[in-house]
């Protein structure tokens, strides 16, 4: 019988892991079921809701559609790896300050997605609402841009209004405004 499992070496929040997994295992299930990191949430399990968003080598991806075997060698960052000791990541703090959640199930995905989204903004990545106009960075981040860029994260409680406020606040900080 040919092997349908693999040894996966993967870095998660700075720690190296070597795990034998069934090839069907996604990064999401590896995190939750094998490594005990349950901060990353399973919502739709089809790449549509964004609750499972993690950073893969610094980029946001849906961990439910990423096979663990395919992610071997990658460095993963989850919501558990964002804070520095007791000090929350600025995006986490902004979610607290702006009350940007209700039930909280989508929040780890929203926060991981936002961390990477703001990094994309700092690298002047355009979005669909940018159109043909140039996008120069945090100074061009407005509510329409935030909503478009966070389109892969659904919130069934409808906390979008405060999520947008939280991220616009960080955008102001990024361009040096109070």
């Amino acid at each position, binding site marked *: 019988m040919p092997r349908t499992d693999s040894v996966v070496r993967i870095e998660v929040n700075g720690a190296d892991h070597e795990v034998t997994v069934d090839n*069907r295992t996604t990064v999401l299930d590896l995190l939750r079921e094998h490594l005990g990191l349950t901060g990353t949430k399973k919502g739709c399990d089809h790449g549509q809701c964004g609750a499972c968003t993690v950073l893969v080598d610094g980029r946001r991806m849906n961990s439910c*559609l990423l096979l663990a075997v395919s992610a071997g060698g990658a460095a993963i960052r989850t919501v558990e790896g964002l804070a520095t000791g007791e000090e929350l990541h600025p995006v986490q703090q902004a979610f607290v300050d702006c009350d940007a959640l209700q039930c909280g199930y989508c929040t780890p995905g929203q926060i991981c997605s936002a961390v990477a989204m703001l990094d*994309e903004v700092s690298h002047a990545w355009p979005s669909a609402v940018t159109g043909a106009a140039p996008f120069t960075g945090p100074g061009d981040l407005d509510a329409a841009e935030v909503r478009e860029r*966070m389109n*892969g994260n659904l919130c069934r409680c409808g906390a979008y209004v405060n999520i947008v406020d939280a991220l616009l606040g960080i955008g102001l900080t990024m361009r040096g405004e109070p």
Partner: protein
Amino acid sequence: MRPFRYERATDAASAVALVSADPDARFLGGGTNLVDLMKLGVERPGLLVDVSGLERSGIEVLADGGLRIGAQVRNSDLAVDPLVRERFPVLSQALLSGASGQLRNAATVGGNLLQRTRCLYFQDVTKPCNKRAPGTGCPARAGEHRDMAILGTSDACIATHPSDLAVALTALDARVNVVGVDGVRTVPVTELYRLPGAEPERDTVLQHGELIERIDVPPSSFATRSAYRKVRDRASFAFALVSVAAALDVADGAVQDVRVALGGVAPRPWRATSAEAALRGRPATAANFVDAISAELEAAAPLPGNAFKVPLARNVVARVLEDLAEATR
């Protein structure tokens, strides 16, 4: 999900050999469509050959002004590339109009071209579907077909092709370079996709085991004046009801050259060749744009639930061309 073996490809030739030798094998790129289809039970491969790590990840502007895109380039990297934005805006706009930031970071350009339809019946293994299970029938004609095709359909299948990128590449006359066991060949994107006919299970002209290596976009004197517009049920993160990729070259008020391709209306990106031919040399007026695309859409065979796509496509094409003409005035 059926258990499967996994091989990480070290070079294109061995990946092609592995998949070609095994009808049960599939290439794995970003996995955003294939892994989803495996969860749904639509795809049940026994072997995945992972090509996502192959060194074909460059975006290169060639000396003649053409663009060369490696098949493993991630959708987001192509979309935000400053030279692509400047010289082929329709490509960037098409990519950014699709999916989410997370999916664009994972999805590869080659995989984007070979993604499967999002037809509800195709994705539901409890339903008949001639594309997924040949000969079982198509419930879409009598059922839910609001987002289905109006052009190029057959009795067997009315599913649409879902890619935005492919629509833009169709308008730009791009070619894909394909590696197979017998060597390399070039396929124009306009000839990559099949119409369903009696064999809707075959989306493309590629043989099992052929791998897209790169995409070449030829130089164009007017691709800088191109745009993509997408109409859908919600403002973001949805497939197209109708989309349009267009490029327009106007001089002295007359159309010198034009490219129009439609998405969301056919089993493949629909190049509006008769509309293009009707417009060349004619005054670049709103009325002429409407006449040209109306003639193209006379071939449409809509169903009761998707007849709205005919006027929608006409209006969106005319509007995009008007905007491009306005921008060059």
